């Protein structure tokens, strides 16, 4: 098994995907957080509560959750690349117990997702504290709470990477899988929030569960006000975490079971 994991790490770092993932973490973590903090949520359009309030702080931390399409897309890209470049046959020749290959991939990408999440959260924390100090703002939450919220978002990124792997194994076509993942996370879920009735589902979707981790209801509230539906009630953070873990397990199961007997032609 460790041979297979070693091989998957080599595969990941032999292309630019590995480095690109870390770069994206810095850009979205430090970059996005730094930019939002510099501008200040009170200057957003429409204006949001400032960083010196708990609501404002939670809101801009929650925004980071919307970068989850990055690790998810990378997961989908990585798994489908084997079909696209026809290396799947070679891989399964070397390891005919296909589930082992997928377990190795899930392990490797789980670690990559963790690295992405840690870099994202770490650079975001650095940017946030630096900008707050420079602008002389005292944050609306104690530093320990901010770090805990960021850590939750960071860990959620592992889940998204695994969801990407599952969708990739399910669809196998690279372009389709990446479009589905990005399209759903970036557009699909926010759109669902706008449909009265259907938006009741939002708390149990991956985006809703992630928002629950930081109790980030700002966007959901804004949307329901916009369309005049009842406000969305997110799950408690622990339930959100449990649900996300469930999604990760389901995606992993799909990734492991599906390729087992499928013909590679």
């Amino acid at each position, binding site marked *: 098994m460790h*041979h*297979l994991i*070693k*091989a998957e790490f*080599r*595969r990941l770092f*032999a*292309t*630019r995907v590995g480095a690109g993932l870390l770069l994206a973490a810095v850009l979205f973590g430090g970059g996005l957080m730094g930019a939002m903090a510099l501008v200040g949520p009170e200057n957003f359009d429409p204006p949001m509560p400032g960083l010196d309030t708990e609501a404002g702080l939670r809101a801009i931390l929650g925004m980071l959750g919307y970068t989850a399409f990055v690790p998810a897309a990378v997961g989908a890209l990585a798994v489908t*690349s084997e079909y696209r*470049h*026809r*290396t799947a*046959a*070679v*891989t*399964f*020749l*070397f*390891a*005919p*117990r296909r589930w082992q290959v997928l377990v190795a991939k899930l392990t490797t990408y789980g670690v990559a997702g963790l690295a992405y999440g840690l870099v994202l959260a770490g650079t975001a924390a650095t940017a946030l504290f630096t900008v707050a100090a420079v602008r002389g703002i005292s944050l609306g939450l104690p530093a320990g709470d901010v770090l805990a919220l960021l850590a939750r978002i960071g860990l959620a990124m592992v889940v998204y990477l695994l969801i990407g792997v599952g969708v990739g194994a399910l669809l196998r076509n690279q372009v389709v899988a990446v479009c589905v993942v990005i399209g759903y996370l970036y557009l699909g879920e926010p759109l669902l929030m706008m449909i009265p009735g259907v938006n009741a589902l939002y708390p149990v979707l991956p985006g809703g569960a992630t928002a629950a981790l930081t109790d980030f209801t700002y966007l959901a509230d804004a949307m329901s006000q916009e369309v005049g539906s009842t406000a969305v009630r997110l799950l408690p953070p622990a339930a959100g975490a449990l649900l996300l873990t469930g999604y990760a397990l389901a995606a992993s199961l799909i990734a492991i079971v599906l390729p087992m*007997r499928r*013909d*590679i*032609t």
Partner: protein
Amino acid sequence: MASVTATDDRPAIEVSHLTKRYGTVTAVRDLTFTVEPGVVTGFLGPNGAGKTTTMRMLTGLVTPTSGTATIAGRPYGQLRNPSRTVGAVFDASAFHPGHTARDHLRVYAAMGGYPDSRADDLLSLLGLTEAADRRTGTFSTGMRQRLNLATALLGDPRVLLLDEPSNGLDPEGMLWLRGFLRRLAGEGRTVLVSSHVLSEIQQLVDDVVVIRRGELVAAGPWSRLAGPPAVLVLSPDADRLAAVLRGSRPDGDPPRVDATGDGRLRVHGLDAAGVADLAAAHQVPVHELVTETTSLEQLFLHLTTERTAS
């Protein structure tokens, strides 16, 4: 070389009553044959005959509908470290275009549990050392072919399966491939090479397995299936030429000479050069001299044209 002692008495490759259906299409139908070590075996048949499907079933990539396909006496999935026993090449290009040749081989060396030095050994064996750090996306067909072979040979397997390796190769590449595979077979390995073009591999193979529409048509040593070569000769003095030829003793036995009318003779047991030399020595004029296509070539031509016609 790797060996599986417990099963050494079994044929290297054994296909038995193998059938594969895709929906309503039967790609392979009740196919049975064996492949011996130490020789190159050609797996022949027109496009769509079921060659690729059979080879994918042999390597566990495709699950048979019924029947068995074993290597060294075991289904592929039950070989302990399969890349140590079997190397296979299916696609002309099976690499991530962003990987270098060395990266690619190291990924699979890691997968098979081989040291990284194995990747460099194979790069040098296949003459790819210069290209080791180039991205495979920039490789020519010939280089891709070599990198495919390098990947398949990482585990020093004693069975090698190549699906249409001659596709897209220039004559020089073909010549190189022929020499390389001959050498591998000479080391006692089992080499199975598929092709839909007989002429491309007839100089390469010792044995052949011919299939059509998923069914076995012929199998055995090339020399037996090809039949004894015959020479057709046209002479204005056919009777005298026949007498001269019958009077010769090239291999102790006189050649068989049949008159086919119009001054034509069909000669078995003597090649074109032998016929020409004898005619010249006895000053018999010869107007035409042709080596007849072998019976396997005729069979194959028949299969191919029948397929195109249908």
